[in-house]
């Protein structure tokens, strides 16, 4: 019940969502209650649904899954007057390479997530909630199920919550290996027992989600921010970050740094400071080469582009995305061609196959980049990589195609000389065609 910390906290952290990390028995409801737990929910019970949504809007909380859509607005789209049942669904299908924060939020403080769900349920009138967890996170299902059991025992879940007549039930639900299921409509398909293929949108989940019913669907971290917002007020949360980017966020700093780890920092925290002051700098005193700022689907930033505040708008302005908070740091020894190939391989493996440009584009990119890595391509084929990416961008059924094209294009464009160098070096071996085949 006392999970160990994977990394030492940093003094620069502002611990809102992670404030219970490291407490003895942090998973237990007693610890939770002793540290202000479920107070926000009690407060929400005194508020009208409109007031709750207004408070969330005031917090400037933006979706922590990657797209950064304003959460309050998303909740506001749910038609509360609809006669259909409403659902709360947690996207705990954390799969974006470079991202491992939701795992910690669930492992260390499962009740915070449940409280966030309860507040959402109260805001939209939902009676059932599902936590869709990637299949690999089996141990978290056990932790969450235990927490859910405690919440039932203490009257925070059930048919008459805290005697108010409110009814809300929460269930954990395991995925079985599919990155695409992190896309919200594909997640819903999977949750309905089908292939994890995305749906045509609109309609969006807010109006036609699980079983075609109105559904609030947010990332784990988004729900985990809700209790603090209701407890201390939306304005207070907003004030922690930058304008239009409220609060703190969990950054997963991985790769070539001395102290990799998950750190809760205010939105807008400077990326270079994050690397050097929070994560202890680039390992072995090497030079910084590049950073992927928000998980593998975000365009790479060269070292000289990294002096920027980490909020959705600033990173977008720099030509990348804040994404899911996965900061992947690469030092000067990094082989950018290999990284690009690995990213291409990932997206090809995870493309669901539904639409043409993603299915065929990711496959083509993977094979072409593999050939370039092996030194058996014409220099002009570097332009082809960019063109394939351009032909995918904005044209695929769901964002997975973009997620593949954006980083790959950025690698080739920003580190073109490395790719070209590969094509100048003598060919090592004739590639075995089987090595190109996806297992």
């Amino acid at each position, binding site marked *: 019940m006392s999970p160990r910390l*994977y*990394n030492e906290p940093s003094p620069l952290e502002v611990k809102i969502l992670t404030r219970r990390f490291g407490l003895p028995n942090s998973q237990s409801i007693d610890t939770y209650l002793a540290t202000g737990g479920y107070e926000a929910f009690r407060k929400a019970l005194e508020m009208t649904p409109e007031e709750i949504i207004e408070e969330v809007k005031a917090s400037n909380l933006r979706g922590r899954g990657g797209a950064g859509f304003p959460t309050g607005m998303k909740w506001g789209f749910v038609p509360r007057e609809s006669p259909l*049942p409403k659902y709360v669904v947690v996207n705990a299908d*954390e*799969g*974006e*390479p*470079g*991202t*491992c924060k*939701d*795992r910690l939020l669930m492992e260390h403080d499962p009740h915070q997530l449940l409280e966030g769900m309860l507040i959402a349920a109260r805001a939209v009138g939902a009676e*059932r909630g*599902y936590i869709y967890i*990637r*299949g*690999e*996170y*089996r*141990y978290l299902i056990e932790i969450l199920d235990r927490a859910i059991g405690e919440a039932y025992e203490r009257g925070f879940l059930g048919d008459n919550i805290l005697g108010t007549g409110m009814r809300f039930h929460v*269930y954990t*639900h*395991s*995925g*079985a*290996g*599919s*990155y695409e299921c992190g896309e919200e409509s594909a997640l819903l398909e*999977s*949750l*309905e*027992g*089908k*292939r*994890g293929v995305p749906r045509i949108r609109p309609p969006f989940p807010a109006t036609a989600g699980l*079983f075609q019913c109105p559904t609030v669907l947010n990332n784990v971290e988004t729900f985990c921010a809700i209790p603090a917002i209701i407890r201390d007020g939306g304005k207070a949360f907003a004030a922690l970050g930058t304008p239009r980017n409220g609060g703190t966020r969990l950054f*997963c*700093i*991985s*790769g*070539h740094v001395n102290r*990799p*780890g*998950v750190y809760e920092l205010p939105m807008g925290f400077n990326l270079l400071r994050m690397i050097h002051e929070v994560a202890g700098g680039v390992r072995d005193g090497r030079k910084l080469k590049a950073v*992927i700022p928000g998980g*593998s689907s975000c365009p790479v930033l060269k070292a000289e582009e990294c002096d920027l505040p980490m909020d959705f708008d600033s990173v977008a302005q720099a030509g990348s995305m804040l994404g899911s908070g*996965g900061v*992947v740091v*690469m030092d000067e020894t*990094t082989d950018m061609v*290999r*990284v690009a190939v*690995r*990213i291409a391989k*990932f997206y090809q*493996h*995870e493309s*669901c196959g539904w639409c043409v440009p993603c299915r065929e584009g990711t496959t083509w990119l993977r094979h072409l980049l593999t050939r370039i890595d092996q030194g058996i391509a014409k220099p002009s084929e570097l332009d082809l990589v960019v063109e394939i990416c351009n032909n995918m961008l904005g044209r695929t059924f769901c964002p997975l195609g973009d997620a593949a094209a954006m980083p790959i294009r950025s690698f080739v464009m920003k580190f073109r000389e490395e790719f070209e160098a590969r094509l100048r070096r003598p060919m090592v071996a004739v590639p075995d065609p089987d090595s190109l085949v996806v*297992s």
Partner: protein
Amino acid sequence: MRFSEQLEAKFNQLISAFPPGRERAALVPMLLYAQDEVGHLTPEVIQEIAGRLRVPVHEVDEVVSYYSMLTRKPRGRYHIQICTNISCMLLGAEQLLEHAKQRLGIDCGEVTPDGRFSLEEVECIGACCWGPAIQVNYDYHHWMTPEKLDRLLEELRKAQ
């Protein structure tokens, strides 16, 4: 076909999580939990689950073939999953995978002759800050090195 009592209880729990008429929603986790118990998704298991949820068998096949954790092929008692995605790769995951292949004498997707180990190169498993990371069945092992992998394999070889 009967499963263990615990699994039957889990099935009931999964199915009862959904409103009446929506039982199919339990399909994906049911398949995964059944696979955990049986080892892989045999035609009998698929048939059984299809029957219980009243889903045509071929629709279950569609689902099984979609998810990368679901398998129709037997795996080893210890399924070694090595993440080689970018964060782990930057810290030597590819070398770790090569090392595992050497040590186990098998390639990805294969099972050792004694049925004890199988090997798979997997995509990000959500351990990016503590890589290279691997999973043995559902257990995480962080900050892996070839030496630590050797020790782990040795322990698992001896395990009853």
